[in-house]
């Protein structure tokens, strides 16, 4: 029992990441509102950012800036740098998704997925009749 | 001769392709186009004869183009079976080209240029099959033949024609893709080559227990051989104009199919391998089934072309039977059957076309007494019928004779009976047609014979059936050249 608890607490960062990841993915899949889907996607991506960042943390380590002290323990800076890039990609994705949502709203008058599906199904049925 | 055998072979294969372009250019000049069509046929025939005379003189033509995939070249080589088929196809092409020109005008068909172009392509593909030096090349031209005849079958553009053409294409392509194609790759993996070699290439490379399976893939994969149950395309293709039916049933398509089967059995399996492993035993029975059942169906058909179509399925199975017997007599019987049946069936289909053009009749029951108005057509029909049945003095007698010989050699008593019953059934479905037309009283409205452009080819091929009886021995002698054994084993 103690083992299990240590197991859980020692890796609590991963538990947080997994919980966030599942929440994000669930929202993306289950919500019908296009904006909410984007929010879900953002949470999902953020969980991955946290995963990388916590991975680079070294216990007792400081920020990776040279201090001159040879015994100084640094955190691994590489994952942090990678995540900077990933965050930029995430922002680009979010803004593009939002732009698309705006255009969809202009073209269809709604951003609810079920209504969009109804409209498109009607359009297909109309095409079939020709 | 002025040109070498190799060059003649090259020209025979590619002249028809060039001619197709020429025909397209002549689309606004029907007369020039038809002359060009016939001329191409004649020149091609002359070229094939040149290759033949070169072969007899010991100058075996061959042509290597390039490797399509590594080790798998597009290559052509001359051997006796292929020469017989090529001479047959190109020779009858002249006849059909003349006939088609007459038919298409008299029947007022549209798109005559398109028709001539695809016709030419189909013959080119048949020649490619005849001269192919390896199984790979054969397969390529086999597929080209299927595709180039599709527009011919669908020529009329009616719903019925579309449906028939669809059946035609789907059955032929699916059998070749689903069965023939894996069979070829299997052969390739087993023996490391696809070249047609005397004595076959599978000996020692394929487990004899698997040989029947591979043979089945080939026999059914070559849908053009119309072995039951893959025969449906043949009656379906009856919607095509008569010259196409003649092309399909006498010259290019079905003959291309059984010829491919023959070539594979001789040069891929090798008759020795087939008979020693008994791989073709089952095929004998399938062929027998395919002789009897379609003949029975043919008797029930009132539509003349449908009747002839089922007759073709039955007659083709004779060739398959010869292949399955896997002996020299069987091989010779099969080849002769290809030739004899081609000559007779082309006559029958041209007659059917002439009847349609002159009297607009397609049903056997409507043709009573028609022979009084069209004596030439129906006499030719009668002669060709006798040849199909196998009566002397007509060519068909010889092929049946050799097949009987082969069956007797193999001690297949049942097959002797099947051959006999097959002939009896062919009497039952063919003779009434001519008999009704010639001996029943004439109908009230008078019709006349079809135009001379159609009658002359009909008479020529009917006469050809007679000639073949006389010259069958020469073909027989020539076929003895077919190498059945690998060179080092031959005595």
């Amino acid at each position, binding site marked *: 029992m103690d083992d299990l608890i240590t197991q859980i607490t020692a890796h609590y960062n991963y538990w947080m990441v997994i919980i966030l990841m599942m929440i994000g993915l669930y929202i993306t899949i289950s919500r019908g509102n296009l904006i909410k889907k984007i929010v879900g996607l953002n949470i999902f991506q953020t969980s991955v950012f946290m*995963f990388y960042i916590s991975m680079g943390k070294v216990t007792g380590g400081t920020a990776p800036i040279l201090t001159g002290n040879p015994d100084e323990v640094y955190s691994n800076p590489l994952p942090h740098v*990678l995540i900077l890039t990933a965050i930029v*990609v995430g922002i680009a994705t979010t803004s593009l998704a939002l732009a698309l949502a705006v255009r969809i709203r202009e073209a269809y008058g709604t951003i609810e997925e079920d209504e969009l599906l109804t409209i498109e199904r009607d359009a297909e049925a109309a095409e079939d009749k020709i | 001769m002025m040109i070498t055998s190799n060059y003649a072979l090259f020209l025979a294969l590619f002249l028809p392709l060039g001619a197709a372009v020429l025909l397209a250019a002549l689309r606004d000049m029907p007369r020039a186009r038809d002359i060009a069509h016939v001329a191409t046929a004649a020149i091609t025939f002359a070229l094939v004869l040149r290759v033949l005379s070169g072969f007899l003189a010991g100058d075996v033509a061959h042509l290597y183009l390039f490797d399509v995939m590594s080790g798998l070249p*597009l290559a052509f080589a001359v051997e006796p079976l292929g020469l017989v088929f090529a001479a047959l196809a190109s020779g009858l092409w002249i006849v059909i080209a003349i006939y088609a020109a007459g038919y298409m005008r008299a029947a007022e068909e549209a798109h005559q240029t398109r028709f001539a172009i695809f016709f030419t392509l189909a013959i080119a593909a048949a020649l490619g099959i005849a001269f192919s030096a390896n199984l790979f090349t054969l397969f390529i031209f086999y597929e080209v033949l299927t595709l180039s005849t599709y527009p011919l079958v669908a020529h009329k553009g009616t719903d019925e024609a*579309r449906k028939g053409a669809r059946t035609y294409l789907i059955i032929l392509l699916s059998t070749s*893709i689903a069965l023939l*194609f894996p069979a070829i790759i299997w052969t390739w993996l087993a023996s490391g080559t696809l070249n047609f070699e005397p004595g076959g290439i599978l000996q020692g490379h394929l487990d004899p227990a698997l040989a029947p399976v591979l043979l089945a893939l080939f026999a059914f994969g070559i849908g053009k051989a119309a072995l039951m149950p893959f025969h449906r395309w043949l009656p379906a293709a009856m919607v095509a104009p008569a010259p196409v039916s003649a092309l399909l049933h006498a010259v290019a398509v079905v003959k291309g199919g059984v010829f491919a089967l023959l070539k594979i059995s001789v040069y891929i399996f090798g008759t020795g391998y087939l008979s020693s492993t008994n791989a073709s035993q089952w095929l004998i029975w399938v062929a027998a089934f395919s002789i009897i059942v379609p003949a029975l169906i043919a008797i029930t058909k009132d539509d003349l072309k449908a009747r002839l179509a089922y007759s073709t399925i039955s007659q083709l199975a004779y060739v398959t039977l010869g292949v399955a017997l896997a002996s020299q007599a069987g091989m010779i019987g099969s080849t002769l059957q290809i030739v004899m049946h081609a000559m007779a069936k082309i006559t029958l289909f041209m007659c059917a076309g002439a009847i349609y053009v002159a009297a607009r009749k397609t049903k056997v029951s409507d043709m009573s007494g028609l022979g009084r108005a069209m004596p030439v057509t129906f006499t030719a029909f009668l002669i060709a019928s006798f040849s199909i049945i196998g009566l002397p003095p007509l060519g068909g007698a010889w092929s049946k004779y050799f097949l009987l010989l082969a069956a007797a050699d193999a001690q297949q008593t049942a097959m002797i009976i099947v051959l006999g019953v097959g002939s009896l059934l062919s009497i039952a479905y063919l003779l009434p047609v001519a008999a009704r037309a010639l001996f029943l009283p004439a109908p009230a409205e008078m019709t006349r014979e079809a135009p001379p452009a159609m009658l002359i080819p009909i008479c020529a091929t009917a006469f050809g059936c007679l000639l073949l009886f006389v010259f069958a021995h020469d073909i027989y002698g020539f076929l003895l050249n077919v190498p059945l054994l690998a060179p080092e084993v031959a005595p």
Partner: protein
Amino acid sequence: MPQFIAQHLPILQVIVPLIAAPFCALISVRNGAWWLAFVTSLVTFAISVLLFAATFDGEIISYHLGGWAPPIGIEYRVDMLNAFVLTIVSGTGVLTLLYARASVAHEVDAKQHGLFYTAFVLCLTGLLGVTITGDAFNVFVFLEISSLATYAIVASGAKTDRRALTAAYNYLIMGTIGATFFVIGLGLLYMITGTLNMADLAQRLLEHGDSRTLRMGYAFILVGLGLKLAMFPLHQWLPNAYTYAPSAVSAFLSATATKVAIYVLLRFLFSVFGFSIPFEADILFLVVLPLALAGSLIGAYIATYQDNLKRLLAYSSISQIGAMLIGVSMLSASGLMAAIIHLFNHAVTKASLYMVAGAYAKEAGTVSIRELRGVGRDMPFTTAAFVVGGMSLIGIPLTVGFISKWYLVEAALMRGWWPVVIVIVVSSLIALIYVGKFIEAAYMHPAPQGIIRREAPLTMLIPMWIFAGLSLFFGINSSLTSEAAARAAQGLVAASSLIWQ
């Protein structure tokens, strides 16, 4: 100077289009954006041909970005396989851009042209970058550059049909999930090895041996890439995206985007993971192969009852991707070679087919098969190109499709996998049905009343027929492509730690 360029070819391959892209948006001269994009694609094509020639005899070019040696610095690594893919991508870029001029003018608003070509060139940049880089994280970045640009150009089809917007949105959601899965996988690999250089990763994973983290990483990367390459059943984004995107975009994407994703999959499976633990091969047999088989059948089957020509082609793509994955999951040199040659062959074929669809969209105003009845008489050259491409999809001899099918069946037979042979053969028979359906409508049916259709302009016909011609040429003489594919397959074989039959 030439030597300087020759030394820096790998980076120029990516940097040239990357720099050119924003200028496409800035040029205000009429058609200026198109010209810039076209010239850029020509330059990238020239570079990739040079790279292809340089690596054809087996040499591997390793380029160190900024002079930093790997594994610290980012490495661009060019061998036979990715030089081959680079050539496919940039070559398709040139021809689709040539085609795009007339097609895009018809399908995209004039005032958006600058932005459209910017996104197009960015997409090209991303795809080239993914292919050329030897750094795993770099793959992700370029993958996202190309994907984001793709979402934008797919959405630009909204002028003809507003459904392009929802298609792009769904593609974005699915694509982002895929990319994020891929990054999670990378993170797990990084946890094990502490490196992101692919060659280094492979080395250290081999030393590491089996672990749950490695298995997780493998699974995440497989699923992530599966989404990107539209592996059945992760393909839902593809049909709508390809149907409603401008035709030039469909042609470009079908020939490149999924192909590059397959390339990445190959690279990771063989060069990075290398099948050092049995788990990796097991997953391929037990999960990927059945899905590939199902995809190749179901995709083809769904294609048979489509009326929209572009959607028909999209489902056919899913089926053909299944065929490639079958080749991959055979885990044999011959299967791999079949997959790689099919990658090229299918790219060429599908590009020409989408160009045909685009020509119909422009000249006939529709891609509905019913409304395109009798089009063979009005647009003979365009429809003839469809016949060529269609025969290649079926696998008729003398087309590239036949070559692919030959190698695929040969590879399956070598393994003795008869059921797989049957699936391959059946899926090409279904292809016969959906191709035949259109060809029959185009040639055998009379045209609907009162429709005027003219042959497509030369700028569309030429690229269309270059692709159709390629699918004939390499079908008649496949020595170049099969040699390149065989060498690329050998390269992958050598990199992995499987024992090869």
